[in-house]
């Protein structure tokens, strides 16, 4: 979904109380927000409840939506704050434990049952991204799917902008490498390479 569509959805929600548009907004953001929230609280029901609360509050305050400059950052920050409150209240130890994340949580689109028989470039690459370390995947996802700036990502994950850059570079180099190896245009060149 592109930014124009998100803007349209927000308008529909603010001006017409459009619940179908609100549901679309939920579909657009909930997966990413859940993965992020879970990485902080490490608890499925808690993460679900936080995402739910953030959206319910968004609806309650929908008249103020036009004042939000970046809805993506707003939603992620709201989840972060609620997640940190939860951690404090429950006296749990948290350190943005991205390394402990379950494999499929960040990019959960394929499961064994729906695995693709043949693969297009898109699918090969997305499968490869899933093999990257969780921190790398999370950064890549926040940048690619949710359009967050490196600065915003650094704030949300409590890491430096340089680290964000390194993760992104790693992911992009991996993609370039795969394309280089699988695009038919490069096949002659590939045969000549030692690796």
């Amino acid at each position, binding site marked *: 979904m592109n930014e124009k569509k998100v803007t349209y959805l927000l308008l529909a929600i603010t001006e017409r109380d459009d619940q179908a548009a609100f549901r679309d907004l939920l579909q657009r953001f909930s997966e990413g927000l859940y993965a992020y929230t879970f990485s902080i609280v490490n608890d499925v029901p808690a993460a679900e409840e936080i995402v739910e609360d953030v959206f319910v509050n968004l609806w309650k305050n929908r008249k103020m939506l036009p004042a939000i400059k970046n809805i993506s950052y707003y939603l992620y920050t709201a989840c972060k704050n609620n997640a940190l409150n939860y951690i404090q209240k429950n006296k749990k130890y948290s350190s943005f434990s991205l390394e402990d994340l379950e494999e499929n949580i960040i990019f*959960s689109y394929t499961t064994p049952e729906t695995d*693709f028989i043949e693969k297009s470039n898109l699918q090969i690459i997305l499968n490869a991204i899933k093999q990257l370390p969780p921190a790398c995947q999370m950064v890549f996802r926040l940048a690619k799917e949710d359009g967050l700036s490196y600065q915003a990502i650094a704030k949300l994950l409590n890491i430096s902008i340089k680290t964000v850059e390194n993760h992104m*570079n790693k992911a992009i180099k991996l993609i370039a490498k795969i394309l280089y190896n699988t695009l038919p245009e490069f096949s002659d060149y590939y045969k000549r390479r030692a690796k």
Partner: protein
Amino acid sequence: MNHYERFAELLAKKKSGNISLPEQRELMELAAHDPKFQKLSDTFESIYNTTVYQNKIAEKLWPSIEKKINIAMAPQISNHKKRSTRQLIISLSVAASLLICFFSYKYYNPSTSLSKKENIVSTKMGSRSNLVLPDGTKVTLNADSKISYGENFAKNTREVILTGEAYFDVKHDAEHPFIIHTDDVTIKVLGTAFNVRAYPNELNTETALIRGSLLVTLNKNENQKIVLKPNQKILVRNERVISKQKAVPLMVITETQKAGADSSVVETQWLNNKLSFNREPFENIVATLERWYGVQIEVHNKLLLSEKFSGVFENKTVEEVLRALQAVGNFIYQKKNDIIIIN
């Protein structure tokens, strides 16, 4: 470091927004000198601008969220103990009208969700994508489009929901009919290759058949079924778009249009990166350009909107297309802050 490693490095810099002017030039030069790098860049962009996700979380949370927001919208119960009868009557009638509003919202947009868990692939403006469905069917998704299928895909039927435009090359499987749902039509595939165009802001949903045969059913009236043969296409009116034209017919069956010298068909030119218009009103051309190039265009010259243009553009930039149209159409365009303004 070899060329491709440097190319990857530059791509990464471009994505982060930290690319310097000389580096940008270097990137363009690498791509210009070697079509392989251009292809790598294009494919990379296409992948970066395609989103693949599931709605698992959304489906799980929605019922509870929906309940909570509707409770929030109900009239507040007053704490005042003393109320006059007149006040009571007024608040009762307000409550009744709110109830009516709730019901109409609930039925307004019936969910076309296939199952609880869907796989969704969507493209942004200016980008298209190729994917392969679990049964081997190949789909090319045009810009600003979205396709989704449930976890039960290929159990009994192979069903997908489409918004936007896609070209399907369906794997033959008589045991599992392939069905495409769009807002206005349902298409059952009896053959193989065809193009479906169902953008929410266009006047019509258009289905053009290349090979095989298709059974098209109107969602508005399930008794209206049409079998399409090769080189036929059907246009079905989109009820959600208000048209300034006098009367748009509910449906029209015509032939696919040949595009000039080669025998390729206009409706699928986009697959070859060819932009093709055949007596298209400028209004539609503008919408297509916005999608194709991912740009924003404002037309201030309202008379221009209904004028018709024809042309084929292959691998041209948006400026080149506009310049060509400008010569014939008698308008001026300028670029202001990333928006193209046409006078």
